[in-house]
């Protein structure tokens, strides 16, 4: 069904995450996922799109270990996993610096090491100069940047994103998409990104997975032929529009089933 020919981007074969025949049934009997096979390799940025309630967030929660799948196997080849939540989940009593240091602190890094890590991460997300600001003094986009920086301190090999930009306005969202792409190019992590925005999915990823709900399963998969780094203007090309159209179509087809 997929039309785009697979274009190898950086075909390192190392598999970081592999779900096979994954199923998830909640205690109340709701079947959230069924028969999901999904692989994320190093160098890949995989995005899962699907309607709300199709179990795509559950996928991430299983990958991170927050939930246990009821069936199937999960293979994770790395300890260094970053997780970015839907909300920035910053601690309101800590300033940006201390918030970004948190994960390193929980890993028992020394004060010097974690402050160095935090400073580097803050620079990467463009928050330099805001170290002493409290979360309530930051805009939604800046909070998300701080949250990203916090995960970056783990130097993740696998980065899980649970609709991180869903609550942001369009302009901020596009800017953060661009910055996430350049981080991806620079930091060499593999990404698994959940979203319900098709254009965000196509723009960010090397592969788009389309899910459908009740129970959540994969209905289609698209390789994204655009190379990295990506020019923001590809969003206005016919090729981009046509791929977005295809994904949207698959999404709608899957939803109808």
């Amino acid at each position, binding site marked *: 069904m997929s039309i785009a020919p697979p274009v190898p981007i950086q075909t390192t074969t190392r598999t970081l995450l592999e779900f096979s025949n994954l199923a998830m049934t909640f205690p109340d009997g709701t079947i959230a996922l069924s028969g999901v096979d999904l692989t994320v390799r190093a160098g890949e940025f995989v995005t899962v799109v699907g309607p709300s309630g199709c179990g795509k967030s559950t996928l991430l929660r299983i990958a991170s270990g927050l939930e246990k799948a009821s069936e199937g196997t999960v293979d994770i080849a790395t300890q260094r996993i970053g*997780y970015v*939540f839907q*909300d920035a*989940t910053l601690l309101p009593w800590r300033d940006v610096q201390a918030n970004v240091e*948190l*994960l390193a602190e929980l890993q028992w890094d020394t004060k010097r090491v974690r402050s160095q890590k935090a400073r580097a991460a803050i620079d990467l997300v463009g928050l330099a100069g805001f170290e002493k600001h409290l979360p309530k003094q930051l805009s939604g986009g800046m909070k998300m940047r701080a949250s990203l920086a916090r995960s970056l301190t783990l130097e993740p090999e696998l980065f899980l994103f649970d609709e991180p930009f869903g609550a942001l306005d369009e302009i901020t969202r596009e800017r953060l998409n661009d910055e996430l792409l350049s981080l991806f190019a620079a930091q060499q992590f593999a990404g698994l990104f959940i979203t319900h925005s098709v254009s965000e999915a196509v723009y960010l990823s090397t592969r788009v997975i389309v899910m459908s709900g009740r129970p959540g399963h994969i209905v289609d998969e698209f390789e994204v032929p655009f190379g990295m780094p990506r020019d923001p203007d590809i969003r206005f090309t016919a090729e981009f529009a046509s791929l977005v159209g295809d994904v949207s179509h698959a999404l709608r087809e899957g939803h109808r089933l």
Partner: protein
Amino acid sequence: MTRVGLVPRLRRSWPSILVFTALIGIWYFISYVLLAEKERFLMRPPHEVAQKLLDPAVAGAIAEALWSSAVVALTGLLIAIVIGMVWAIAMSQARWIERSLFPYAVVLQCIPILALVPLIGFWFGYDFPARVIVCVMIALFPVVSNTLFGLQSVDRGQRELFQLQGATRWIVLSKLELPTALPAIFAGMRISAGLSVVGAIVGDFFFRRGSPGLGSLISNYQSRVQGAELFAAIIVASLFGVAIFILFGWLGKRVVGSWYDFNS
């Protein structure tokens, strides 16, 4: 925190000043118009009460009683805060602990402490320890319930953030739950502070042993029909309650005010 100048502060508080003036007016009206000359001892006019407050003999007695009650109230409050927080933290650690202990916090809140005061005197004597126990019992519940509520109000995402790093219970408690709970804890402490003053006066009112506090003093003035002195003591007791309430409001603002909108 911004400092508010005197003029805007006055402008903002003029309604309460107006009410105060009106109350004084009503007070005078009752003293001089409603009460006949020989009934006036029931409600001495404000200036006589003020004179008593300035009279060294009366003021000295009240100050001494205030000191004694303040020591009782603050000791009781401190113990209530410690017990209350430990109690709440224990309950926050496991559902079964909460289920077994929370009902008793509620029972404690529902017991009319006044009914227990004679029993407390019976068991613990009528001196300092008994008075402190009365204080603790009255002041405990708001600390317990507010601390528990605060500890349980941690955002799920933040909790999972800690969970993903394999944080221990102790780390989650000290770095996430307790800081999250601080605003609620301070709100609870402020309520308890007011209640501990009530406890100190009630205990003293009943026991009337040891160094006399505001309760004994009020009780003495009442039995000697010293209306003006009685009013003076009541006013000082009220001001003490207000002061301790403000103190804890200020403390809360100092501690969490930078990141939490703690209204004082």
